[in-house]
């Protein structure tokens, strides 16, 4: 009876509501059809855990963060070598004569996107105070920043022992002079400082949103970038054009367009158009290379693919010179280039059994052991097996994309010499019984497992007994990285992607104060290296600095601190109805704002 009485008052409005929804729904369908959206489907090989700029120390997070937030500077879309250009900043910084004080003026009109975190839900103008807050929060414990090391000891008031308890606490070297001017005082000259302001870690965040969302800020990013977040989960992130973003039209010439180099990419039509150029970007997180390829090859799948090395044979006509097959060139747009980074194997130098030892005799003996392992390592076979022979092997840690790259002065460190390895071990007095056992760390993937088997076979060839290297596998990179940070592994494989185009960024991997859990995962501790590194860090670009960088590189080669290195060649394919020039490294996510798709795209 009760239900019967209730039915009529509920049923009528319910029916009306359903009819209204149906009518509105039909109407919306027509509107969508009339104004077809421009959608670009991007694919990357991993999913970020957080989109908070303070956690954007990996390429996956950085790709998205650079589009949701603004950084003061960015890299030009097309210029190579990479060139900085003002982004949120109005111009390049005014730097004092002693190179320690930077004044940066913000551009007018930059606004944070509308969000419930702001009063009335309306975004507000980005101010100098936001820049100061964004840098300062890296040093607040609740941020759990992964980027504090970039500015610690560099900015006055942010020295090693400094802690910031509240966002209101002032920092001597960080000040908002007025609404649009920031003053930053450094402890000493740091010519790479402007580059750090183009990294995703330096992106500008509004304090209201950080406080409003708390720990959830990583999944509710609020920024002033060209896009706003529509969806973010383990499978994909959907970005929509930020209606409040206005940086004027694309100036292709200013972005480094070269009609010869960029011929065939159909980039000219974007010149003079306001950006971002697409309404929506879907970033698909597909870790499995074959799944990424399948998605790209299917209709309605992703628009771009970074070809996995296993498939290089299917798309390449020749490796040297590198040329895609005619069928691939006809069907897709293609691009190849060397990565701005490298992979290497590192020793834990903090382990006195294989690394630094207080006893000079043992120290020499340990060096002989490491050098013997390096001699036994076959980079050429590694390149052939895992990188389709397209990687570039080079000695040390200054990759070929950098101006300071030392043209192979001594290939000895990357040449497979098993006989020399055996001789080294014998002359240093190492025997199968005295060789210290080593823990080899790897992620639980089939590729890393195969790399271990390959490594072990080379070492056995050089005289290391079977079972000498104990593999310890980890479920994910986070766990693996933590084990390296806690110095649990004796030997490990790592990759390093440059965040700015300067050798200082890769040589910091060996700077003593950066020891684990910092970037110096190998725990190299050489006072002479540290002294020269500190000197190089304060020098402006020029021959003196380059010479110092090369000297530092030779020191790590001499000490056999790493077995390395190799820079991978990236092969990109994308659909011909997409206008772009992709870049995974330094330009990274910045290129997405310049991606366009043709109007009559199916």
């Amino acid at each position, binding site marked *: 009876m009760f239900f019967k009485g209730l039915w009529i008052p509920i049923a009528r409005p319910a029916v009306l509501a359903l009819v209204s929804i149906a009518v509105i729904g039909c109407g919306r369908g027509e509107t969508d059809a009339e104004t077809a959206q421009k959608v670009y489907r991007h694919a990357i090989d991993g999913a970020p855990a957080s989109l908070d700029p303070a956690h954007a120390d990996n390429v996956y997070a950085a790709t998205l963060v650079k589009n949701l937030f603004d950084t003061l500077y960015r890299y030009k879309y097309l210029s190579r070598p990479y060139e900085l250009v003002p982004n949120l900043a109005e111009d390049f910084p005014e730097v004092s004569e002693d190179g320690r004080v930077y004044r940066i003026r913000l551009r007018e009109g930059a606004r944070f996107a509308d969000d419930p975190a702001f009063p009335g839900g309306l975004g507000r103008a980005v101010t100098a105070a936001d820049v100061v807050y964004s840098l300062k929060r890296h040093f607040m414990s609740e941020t759990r920043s992964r980027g504090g090391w970039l500015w610690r000891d560099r900015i006055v008031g942010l020295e090693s022992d400094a802690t910031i308890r509240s966002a209101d606490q002032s920092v001597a070297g960080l000040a908002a002079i007025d609404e649009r001017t920031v003053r930053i005082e450094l402890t000493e000259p740091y010519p790479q400082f402007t580059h750090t302001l183009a990294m995703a870690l330096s992106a500008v965040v509004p304090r209201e949103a950080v406080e409003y969302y708390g720990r959830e800020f990583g999944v509710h990013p609020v920024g002033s970038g060209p896009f706003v977040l529509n969806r973010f989960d383990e499978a994909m992130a959907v970005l929509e054009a930020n209606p409040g973003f206005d940086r004027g039209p694309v100036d292709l010439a200013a972005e480094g367009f070269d009609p010869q180099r960029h011929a065939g990419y159909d980039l000219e039509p974007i010149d003079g158009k306001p950006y971002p150029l697409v309404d929506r970007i879907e970033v698909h997180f597909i870790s499995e*290379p*074959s799944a990424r*390829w399948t998605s790209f090859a299917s209709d309605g799948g992703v628009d771009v693919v970074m070809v996995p090395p*296993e*498939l290089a*044979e*299917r798309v390449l006509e020749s490796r040297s010179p590198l040329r895609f097959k005619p069928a691939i060139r006809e069907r897709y747009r293609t691009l190849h280039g060397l990565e701005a980074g490298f992979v290497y194997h590192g020793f834990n130098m903090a382990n006195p059994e294989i690394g630094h030892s207080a006893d000079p005799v043992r120290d020499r003996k340990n060096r002989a052991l490491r050098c013997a392992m390096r001699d036994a390592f076959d980079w050429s*076979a590694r390149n*052939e*097996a*895992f990188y389709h022979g397209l990687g570039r092997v080079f000695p040390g840690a200054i990759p070929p994309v950098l101006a300071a790259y030392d043209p192979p002065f001594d290939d000895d460190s990357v040449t497979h010499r098993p006989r020399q390895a055996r001789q080294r071990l014998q002359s240093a007095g190492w025997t199968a019984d005295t060789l210290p056992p080593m823990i080899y760390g790897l992620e*639980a*993937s*089939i*590729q890393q*497992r*195969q790399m271990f*088997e*390959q490594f*072990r*076979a*080379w070492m*056995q060839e050089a005289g290391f007994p079977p079972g000498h290297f*104990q*593999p*310890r*596998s980890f*479920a994910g990179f986070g766990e693996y990285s933590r084990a390296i940070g806690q110095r649990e592994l004796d030997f490990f494989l790592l990759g390093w992607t440059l965040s700015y185009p300067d050798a200082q960024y890769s040589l910091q991997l060996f700077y003593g104060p950066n020891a684990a859990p910092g970037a110096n995962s190998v725990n190299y501790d050489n006072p002479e290296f540290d002294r020269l590194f500190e000197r190089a860090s304060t020098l402006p670009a020029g021959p003196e600095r380059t010479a110092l960088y090369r000297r530092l590189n030779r020191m790590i080669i001499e000490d056999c601190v790493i077995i390395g290195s190799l820079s991978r060649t990236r092969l990109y394919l994308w659909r011909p109805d997409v206008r772009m020039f992709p870049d995974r490294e330094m330009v990274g996510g910045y290129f997405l704002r310049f991606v366009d798709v043709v109007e009559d795209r199916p």
Partner: protein
Amino acid sequence: MTAPVTLRRRLAGLDRLPVALMAVFLAAAAGVWCGLWGTDWSTISGTLREPPSPEHWLGTNRLGQDILERLLAGTATAFEVGLLVAVASVALGAALGGLAGFHAGRRIDTLLTWVIGTIDAIPFYLFVAAIAFAMRGWPGAMQLAMILSFWTLTARLVRTESMRLREREFIAAARASGSTNRRILLRHILPNLAPLLLVQASLAFVAAVKAEVVLSFLGIGLQDSISWGIMIAEASQEILAGHFTNFIAASLALFVLVLSINSLSDGLQERLDPRVRRTPTERLA
């Protein structure tokens, strides 16, 4: 005690093909254990991805390792995992199931039935993966995980069978002649369960081999060893590039071994279990 004689007689009529195939696999595994072949599975003995040749009958993989060597070593791994898990899980299941069945209705039975139900309620791969992951680093983690998961089915069957047997006349006679519970369980009930346990062991063997392949494929199986699962996982990187030898070799070996054991298991069940035993006329039909 006539059961062993009956068992031998019953086993004599099994189909020859699965028995022959099993013998081949067993010989392959035995050769590895004796050090005759399959010991150089990790050695790089050729160049990358060589096609089949007199030196490398099945070619080489992306590292230049001989695929046949790895296949043979993988056979030994399959038998090591399969036999260990089959024997241990059936022994554990028989002991605990027999205990529960013999003491049906008592507290020990309630407790064991609860444990069995609880383990069965956890999805198999989740359970095995959780244990294998929690104990990673220990080489026997995967096998232990499988034993802890597989014993429950045997225990359930043995419990039911024990409850049935304990009501039989010969048990009553044994009890009347003064036999202890332990003696009745070991000398009278368990021997009568032998056919059932043999069939269960063959099923557990197959399940263990398959589970090992899946877990190794997922990267949570064997750590520093070679198995068909690892070979298939390696092949997943190569198939799109058009290299199939690794995949075909390991998959085919797995397929034939599983099919052989399943046929053997069916044959065993047919001959040992009177409830499913068919007459020659039925078999022809």
